[in-house]
């Protein structure tokens, strides 16, 4: 047996020794921890002790039969139902279908108290899919919970709506959710925005009329709510950037404030202020500034500042830098910014850290059309990467080289591609590479004359 399993099993007696028999099954400890002697615990323990898949199947089928009886019995308490539901989720995770439990998940969400409801909603979000016929039954519960005076219930309802909701029933909940956009608690406002984003994705015409409410969310005093609205804006701008050029100034201002540290320190992640918010904004600006000199003009300053600020040595900083570089290359070009961005890419490519090297190669592939000299500058490093032990780095390098093939280097490059094909076993990679070689063969037919 592996050492991990051994360690798990050797720890279990320690857990059992701590369990207080008077506390009943699932005694609480710490932040609501489940003890190993609960029914779930013993199921997991039993599975771990088995050595063959066949035995596991037998055990799980036994468990499922017992669970089926329990959930169908009229005397089963909601508390027990919640516990059964967790075991059902576990069985499905192991790959055993337990659809008899789905309807009970919905019932649990409907009838349970706070904790039971939470598990019911979780089970529904994991078991069902968008077009499942049982999903309609969830709507009444959601409607009820959205109107609850208990804010935790409202949150749960909004959370489940953001994950899974039947398209035809959107009108039933839309007004309730719109209402929540003005709630005093920011967590409710934020989840309402996220729910509307979900609606926008599955039925955009149903939320056409509330675009002005998105604008309000964008100006929300809480940065989290504002950040949530950016998901919607990013999507809408992707589809129609010209309709939102007037908002460029606002996005630039927000980014300036975030980068300048105007948000509360609460939003910091490893000393970087609201990094995901920054990245969303950078993407939005990229879309707005593309092929548009006037709009791009508005953002040069803040992009410059973002490049400067991102000095801290942490992955998230590099992530922001990468986005920044991409944005600079997407919008209408400005030479000073391009120079700085090119330097950045150079640092990535030369970095000893393998993840950054990968990103550097990726960035080079992206900018190669606009700046072929950059690849020439780093030729040596690129050639070294061709022989890198990591096949992913090799592949990314080949991707890059494919874009800079010309009459002189095509033979060498195709040879390297063929070498890679010999080693690779991944179907998708092979297909993609073969396609590229075929393309190059068409373009430079003389490579087969040797």
């Amino acid at each position: 047996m592996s050492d991990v399993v051994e360690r798990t099993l050797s720890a279990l007696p320690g857990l059992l020794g701590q369990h207080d028999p008077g506390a009943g099954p699932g005694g609480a400890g710490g932040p609501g921890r489940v003890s190993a002697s609960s029914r779930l615990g013993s199921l997991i323990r039993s599975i771990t002790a088995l050595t063959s898949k066949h035995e596991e199947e037998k055990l799980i089928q036994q468990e499922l039969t017992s669970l089926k009886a329990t959930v169908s019995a009229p005397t089963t308490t909601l508390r027990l139902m919640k516990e059964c539901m967790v075991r059902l989720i576990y069985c499905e995770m192991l790959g055993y279908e337990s659809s008899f439990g789905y309807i009970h998940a919905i019932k649990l969400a409907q009838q349970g108290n706070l904790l039971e409801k939470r598990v019911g909603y979780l089970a529904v979000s994991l078991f069902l899919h968008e077009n499942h016929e049982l999903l309609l039954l969830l709507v009444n519960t959601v409607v009820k919970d959205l109107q609850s005076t208990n804010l935790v219930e409202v949150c749960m309802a909004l959370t489940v709506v953001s994950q899974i909701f039947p398209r035809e029933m959107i009108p039933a909940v839309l007004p309730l959710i719109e209402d929540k956009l003005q709630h005093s608690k920011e967590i409710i406002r934020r989840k309402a925005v996220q729910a509307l984003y979900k609606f926008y994705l599955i039925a955009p015409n149903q939320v056409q009329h509330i675009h002005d409410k998105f604008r309000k969310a964008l100006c929300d005093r809480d940065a989290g709510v504002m950040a949530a609205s950016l998901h919607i804006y990013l999507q809408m701008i992707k589809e129609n950037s010209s309709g939102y050029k007037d908002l460029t100034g606002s996005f630039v201002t927000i980014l300036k404030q975030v980068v300048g540290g105007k948000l509360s320190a609460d939003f910091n992640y490893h000393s970087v202020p609201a990094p995901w918010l920054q990245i969303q904004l950078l993407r939005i600006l990229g879309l707005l500034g593309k092929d548009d000199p006037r709009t791009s003009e508005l953002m040069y300053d803040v992009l410059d500042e973002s490049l400067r600020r991102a000095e801290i040595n942490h992955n998230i900083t590099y992530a922001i830098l990468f986005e920044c570089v991409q944005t600079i290359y997407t919008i209408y070009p400005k030479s000073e910014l391009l120079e700085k961005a090119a330097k950045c890419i150079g640092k990535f490519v030369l970095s000893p850290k393998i993840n950054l090297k990968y990103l550097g190669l990726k960035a080079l592939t992206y900018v190669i059309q606009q700046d072929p000299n950059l690849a020439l500058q780093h030729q040596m490093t690129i050639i070294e990467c061709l022989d890198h032990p990591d096949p992913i780095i090799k592949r990314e390098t080949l991707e890059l080289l494919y874009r800079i093939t010309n009459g002189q280097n095509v033979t060498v490059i195709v040879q390297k591609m063929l070498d890679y094909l010999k080693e690779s076993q991944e179907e998708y990679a092979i297909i993609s590479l073969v396609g590229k070689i075929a393309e190059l063969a068409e373009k430079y037919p003389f490579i087969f004359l040797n």
Partner: protein
Amino acid sequence: LFETLRLRLTLFFFPLLPIQQMQFMLLFSRQGKLRLQKWYVPLSDKEKKKITRELVQTVLARKPKMCSFLEWRDLKIVYKRYASLYFCCAIEDQDNELITLEIIHRYVELLDKYFGSVCELDIIFNFEKAYFILDEFLLGGEVQETSKKNVLKAIEQADLLQEVSKSNFSGRSVSMVVVTQKLHVPLSF
């Protein structure tokens, strides 16, 4: 090849797949046992099983010094191992892998804060709590930029209610000491 095309077609028929969205997140042990699965795109059970099986094999075959990203079918896979647990996310090909790596790290930090020095056992025995935390932080597959307190506040509120009801029942609290390999949560790379 046929399976690849089918995966693409499924994604094509999804009404409006947002750009740069996470497709799914899987947590699995070094033996390939699934500990958590969250799917943000509609796929049949059969497809999910197939993807899980193949992906787990592919990730487990990676050597330690290799980069944390790999290309698999037409997706980008970002993965990181914390002690005995692999965290694995699938994103669109053009997306920024480093951000996803940080999303994983942020999630681990949240788990760590909630459980207090989290380890694999915590996630195994309390996986529904791990789901609750994930859903607060990655609502519908989108990162929620929130103040640090908010993500865990929502979970802890409901937990407090459980403490109250349990202590009424037993009159005593039980502490649990888990003596196993802890998840190493590095503060910087």
